[in-house]
């Protein structure tokens, strides 16, 4: 009989304290996410010091809950995988040090996982990955296009030069007076709207897969300013729709272009903004037209969670990747291949 391999995943890179047990890299046995949204809401965004304080309060509870729900004891585990970076440094340090202490106490190998590799591997929990594949990672901290030719091999072909897509969403939400977190509300307003304001799209150089959203954000602010100076009022729905269309257009066109150029077998989307209905619809339709399979995990696996870290950790563990107790939280960690 083949032995099952269980990995404990831990994630604390931003404002969710999360732990999960994943079986054989593909099956979620438990996934606990303690979100700080309620506490951070009053500050209108994530305050790093508050995030760190809340992680310390939650960390052992969340890990215990993940093990209990999975009915797993530490000796059943193969390894502990933890988000090493990128993210908020103070927040990362809580997960990293908890993981190191847990690994030492239970004499388990320790594996430091890149947060984006985690988002990509969230898909492995739904569908087997087929290579080459193209991953679009869109969240509050990231906007990246990554080509993978095999497990553990990442080629970053495009990224944002300024704001991340999710960041732009949150800023525009604030301009529209929507409460934090505003991204999902902009999406909702946009979907309800019959009309949209025409905002610019930043295509950058013809051959570039990079993104830029700060110009769009300024265009929205200027638009509001101009109307209000003339004593008028903006229609938040029309603005949301126009903004969303601009973001989704650029993301979709560049993703489809890259998918064709790299002749990929599948395209996957990941990250918090991958939960955006407008983006999902646009990518699904555009890729269907090209006959390229497109997968996006359910919302709970798009936003930050520890199952994705355990899933990536499993592949790293299989490849013999190990960290030691000198592991540090790395806020600016680059995405590196392990294969």
């Amino acid at each position: 009989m083949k032995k099952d391999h269980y990995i404990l995943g831990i994630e604390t890179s931003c404002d969710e304290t999360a732990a999960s047990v994943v079986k054989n890299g593909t099956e979620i046995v438990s996934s606990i996410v303690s979100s700080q949204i309620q506490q951070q809401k009053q500050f209108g965004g994530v305050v790093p010091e508050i995030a760190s304080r809340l992680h310390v309060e939650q960390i052992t509870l969340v890990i215990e809950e993940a093990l209990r729900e999975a009915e797993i004891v530490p000796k059943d585990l193969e390894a502990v995988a933890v988000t090493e970076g990128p993210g908020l440094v103070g927040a990362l340090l809580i997960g990293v040090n908890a993981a190191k202490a847990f690994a030492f106490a239970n004499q388990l190998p320790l594996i430091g996982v890149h947060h984006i590799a985690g988002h990509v591997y969230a898909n492995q929990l739904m569908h087997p990955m087929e290579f080459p594949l193209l991953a679009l990672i869109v969240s509050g901290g990231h906007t990246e296009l990554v080509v993978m030719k095999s497990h553990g091999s990442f080629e970053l072909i495009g990224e944002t030069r300024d704001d991340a897509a999710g960041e732009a969403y949150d800023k525009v939400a604030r301009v529209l007076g929507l409460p934090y977190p505003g991204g999902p509300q902009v999406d909702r307003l946009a979907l309800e709207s019959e009309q949209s304001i025409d905002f610019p799209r930043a295509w950058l150089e013809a051959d570039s897969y990079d993104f830029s959203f700060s110009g769009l954000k300024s265009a929205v602010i200027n638009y509001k300013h101009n109307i209000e100076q003339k004593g008028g009022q903006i229609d938040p729905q029309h603005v949301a729709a126009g903004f969303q269309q601009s973001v989704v257009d650029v993301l979709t066109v560049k993703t489809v272009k890259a998918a064709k150029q790299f002749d990929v077998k599948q395209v996957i989307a990941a990250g918090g903004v991958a939960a955006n209905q407008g983006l999902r619809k646009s990518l699904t339709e555009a890729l269907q037209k090209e006959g390229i399979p497109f997968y996006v995990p359910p919302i709970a696996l798009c936003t930050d969670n520890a199952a994705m870290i355990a899933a990536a950790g499993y592949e790293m563990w299989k490849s013999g990747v190990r960290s030691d107790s000198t592991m540090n939280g790395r806020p600016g960690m680059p995405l590196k291949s392990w294969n």
Partner: protein
Amino acid sequence: MIWLGIDTANSPLSVAIVKDGELLIEESSMMKVNHSLRAMPAVEEVCRKTSISPSEIDAIAVSEGPGSYTGVRIGVTIAKTLAWTLGKPLYGVSSLKSLAMNGQLYNGLLCPLFDARRSNVYSAIYRMAGEELVSVMEDQHCALAELLEQLKEMKEPILFIGEDVKLHEQSIREQLGEQAKFASFAVNVPRASSVISLAMRAEQADSVHSFTPQYRRITEAEVNLVKKEPTNE
């Protein structure tokens, strides 16, 4: 009974193991090292050098603050994770009180102090009463000037303890003159063995899960929030 002690509350790092009332090993460094990088390796090292496996540890004592927010959190996170997963009791000890232990032979007031920037300090006042260190002024975050004013009124010799004392030595001397005493650098090293020694006489943490650092200060974001919201009084 085997105790593991950890102090990462400020830039120095100290870890120790006490077995049956005897200090087996203590490793302390005043180097400005990154605790996230160095704390767990130091814990592993003292265990390895004493041939003690993690499961043999009976109790964990940690310096709970005040101090550097990040430093305190790293020590507390390690300590609470170890205590929880090993199923052993956890003890939190004031970082100021454990530093005051360095002056336990001094006959007078003890004033451990950490710099908190902008002329503020984390400080407290203790004195020895028999074998025990008793609190004269609680651990707090305060303006140095305020602290010195209070000390002046006590009209007793005071021993200042901590590596940050040198940052404020001039102001202290100006305010307190001969009342202020400064010890050699050897007295300024926070010691994890002191954390253990105090933990032995302290109450264990009610719940490992809800154990959190004693920051002694709310965050800037919370201060601003209170300022924005007028009170209903």
